[in-house]
């Protein structure tokens, strides 16, 4: 190796050469597919398949530039500490992966430029700048947030979504966009932020290397101070289950409420102030706020499903495995913590909503809806309040559901299974974005006949779900079964009630086959609460705990 730069670059290449090969393969295949498609329907937009392949290729490239090594405090990847003893400056160590990442992503974009920019939605230089900035943000977040454990992934997701949103912002109506939505302005903003991110990352790595000095401890100490403020448990525990509940709650229970509170305070509340004049926007923001716990429960649920929340390790830690606590109790504790977490998150939402709506909230759209509901349900105010309560309950159950549904795969200790179940979600989300999922209800409701196969599929899914559930719950003790069955009943009942209410409101607006739609709503409600997966979780954990 001639120089340190080449050595560092070679290291990145050597570690990920198989992934690079796959990216290359995908690019070749994608371009081929695209050429064939454009032969068939010349001049049309690039097909969804091509877009999907492009997305996967870019995702893989981002994975290649995951410039971390395991061994961190929380068992997650951190900046490779072993590089610190090499005779290279910190600037060098930080710049090499960043510049390599930027170069690679631009190269990949060049290769894919033709198919991707055919629809003319965004101009190439703008996209190029966004991609380069994303690499910088990504690496910066990866290195500076290592103490956040597996929640770093959430941050990365947020960054990705933010960059994507900025990318499509210029094309939003109304056209022509105001000065701040011009491509040039946004590009400038993003580039500026990227420079700041680079400097932050450089400073952080340099600090890591030389241990920081007094100020380093002061910065971390705010976080520490918050952590230290947690009250010490001073009373004895009534029984093992209560003790373990305290343990799990302290480890991971407050994460979802804190995240929800954070998102609402930092994003929703300021935006609500900005949008207070527009009723429609306020209503949409309200819906977003209500959806926040549910959406955030998905990534938190992924972390929650592992035996240790903060570590990426799927093995049961010896400390827990050696406790005289049955696997069922361990799973039951996690389910209870999830419930508490969900309830607390919704309390946060409701409190903040109350503050917002009663102070500066634009209640026009909301009042209109309430009026319609009041009129529809025989002019009873109680019905309106009842619906509001149902919404809250359904939301809580949905949040809880997302926290708990991955327990089966996370506790199993089998990495392929866990990764597959996570990838399934990611693919679903990507596919939803790519194939424009919000056109789906319109497409379905346009032609009522399209609803029939969907209803049939749902019906078969329900039958399969309950059959698998009966099988899964055979080996679980009756006490656990009884408790969970009650929870399941409550959840399903609330979903059913909510579904029926929603259907009741919706049907006056839509010219569809109401019976079919009602059946669909009922079936979906029956599918919503996880049954088999929670029943299988103890067996999964037992298998992980007593490894064979």
């Amino acid at each position, binding site marked *: 190796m001639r120089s340190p730069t080449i050595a560092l670059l070679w290291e990145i290449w050597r570690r990920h050469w198989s992934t690079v090969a796959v990216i290359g393969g995908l690019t070749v295949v994608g371009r081929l597919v695209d050429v064939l498609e454009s032969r068939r329907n010349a001049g049309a937009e690039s097909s969804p398949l091509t877009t999907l392949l492009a997305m996967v290729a870019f995702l893989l490239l981002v994975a290649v530039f995951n410039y971390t090594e395991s061994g961190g405090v929380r068992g997650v990847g951190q900046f490779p500490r072993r590089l610190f003893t090499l005779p290279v400056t910190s600037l060098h160590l930080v710049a090499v992966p960043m510049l390599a990442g930027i170069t690679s992503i631009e190269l990949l974009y060049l290769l894919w430029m033709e198919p991707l920019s055919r629809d003319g939605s965004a101009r190439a230089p703008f996209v190029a700048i966004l991609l380069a900035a994303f690499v910088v943000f990504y690496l910066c977040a990866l290195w500076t947030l290592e103490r956040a454990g597996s929640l770093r992934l959430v941050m990365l997701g947020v960054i990705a979504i933010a960059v994507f949103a900025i990318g499509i912002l210029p094309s939003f109506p109304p056209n022509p966009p105001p000065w701040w939505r011009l491509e040039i302005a946004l590009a400038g903003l993003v580039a500026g932020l990227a420079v700041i991110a680079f400097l932050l990352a450089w400073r952080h790595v340099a600090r890591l290397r030389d241990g920081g000095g007094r100020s380093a401890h002061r910065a971390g100490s705010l976080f520490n101070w918050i*952590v230290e403020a947690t009250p*010490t*448990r*001073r*009373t*004895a*525990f*009534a*029984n*093992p289950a*209560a*003790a*373990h509940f*305290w*343990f799990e709650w*302290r*480890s991971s229970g407050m994460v979802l409420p804190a995240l929800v509170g954070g998102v609402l305070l930092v994003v929703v509340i300021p935006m609500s102030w900005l949008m207070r004049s527009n009723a429609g926007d306020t209503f949409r923001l309200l819906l977003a706020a209500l959806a926040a716990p549910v959406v955030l429960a998905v990534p938190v649920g992924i972390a929650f499903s592992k035996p240790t929340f903060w570590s990426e390790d799927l093995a049961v*830690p*010896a*400390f827990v*495995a*050696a*406790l*005289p*606590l*049955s*696997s069922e109790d361990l799973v039951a504790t996690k389910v209870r913590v999830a419930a508490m977490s969900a309830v607390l998150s919704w309390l946060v939402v409701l409190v903040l909503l109350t503050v917002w709506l009663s102070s500066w909230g634009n209640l026009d759209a909301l009042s209109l809806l309430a009026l319609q509901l009041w009129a529809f349900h025989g002019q009873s105010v109680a019905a309106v309040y009842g619906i509001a309560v149902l919404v809250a309950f359904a939301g809580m159950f949905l949040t809880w559901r997302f926290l708990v549904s991955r327990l089966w795969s996370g506790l199993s200790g089998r990495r392929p299974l866990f990764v597959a179940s996570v990838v399934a979600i990611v693919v679903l989300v990507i596919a939803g974005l790519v194939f424009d999922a919000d056109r789906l209800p319109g497409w379905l409701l346009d032609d009522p006949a399209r609803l029939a196969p969907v209803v049939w599929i749902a019906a078969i899914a329900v039958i399969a779900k309950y059959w698998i559930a009966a099988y899964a719950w055979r080996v679980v003790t009756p006490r656990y079964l009884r408790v969970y069955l009650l929870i399941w009943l409550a959840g399903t009942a609330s979903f059913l009630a909510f579904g029926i209410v929603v259907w009741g409101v919706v049907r006056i607006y839509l010219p569809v086959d109401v019976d079919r739609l009602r059946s669909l709503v009922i079936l979906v409600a029956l599918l919503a609460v996880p049954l088999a997966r929670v029943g299988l979780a103890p067996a999964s954990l037992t298998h992980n*705990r*007593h*490894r*064979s």
Partner: protein
Amino acid sequence: MPETVAAVSHLTRSFGAKKALNEVSLSVPKGAVFGLVGENGAGKSTLIKHLLGLWRAETGSVRVFGLDPVSDTVAVLGRIGYLSEEPDLPGWMRVGELLRYTQAFYPRWDTAYAEQLRDRFALDPEARIKTLSKGQRARLGLLAAEAHRPDLLILDEPSSGLDPIVRRDILEAIIRSVTDEGRTVLFSSHLLDEVDRVSDHLAMLHRGTLRFCAPLEDIKARHRRISLHFERPPAEPPNVSAAIRVDGAGREWTVICDAGRIHAAALAQHLGATLVEDTAASLDEIFVAHAAH
């Protein structure tokens, strides 16, 4: 027949092609201090994890208190105190909280005893575990394992990397446990002087196979070191078929062997050498001799 607290029979465990445990059968008598020795990677931790149910037996059986630790997890673990090699105690917990938490699981927890030990080990109840040094963490783990006076105290390489003062605390805990009626201690170590001091039963694993398992006294009585002096240096190492290890160079040769099978004077005569010494082999020598092949 003394009661056995733990019994392992024909236990095998492979990791891929490598056999971590190969048809291991041993039993731990009640009230014993059972030492488990072997090189790194010999299978000691794996065997211990089988006793705790952290590994499921591939072949053979594992019984602790007569129960299978995999199917009767709670019943077995409720009577065991375990200190692992790297105690992975949660860093965010405070010392006092950990004790209160652990107390909830073991009905026989003796609060006064726990308090006494905590004071003795100088553990601040408000300190967070992640601020404790390695030695303090080991002490805390030992406290949590001991305070409920378990019927079986299992220590997996408890002294590894610890200073002599902490090692003393661990040895004290071992002795204290066994002088308490009916309690048993099983510990694995490669610090042979400690094993020599406190154990009364010894088992040695080498590359997954059990080399010997017997009361310590018997093992020491059985193994002898025979030193021979040859007038003319033999061309090749003397061939002593029943010896465990033959070592030396030139005129001086040492044979470590099982005393029941070799008569020293006869051997010397047979090989044409003078018998310089015939003494009991030290535990170190026994260990090295068995680990050599």
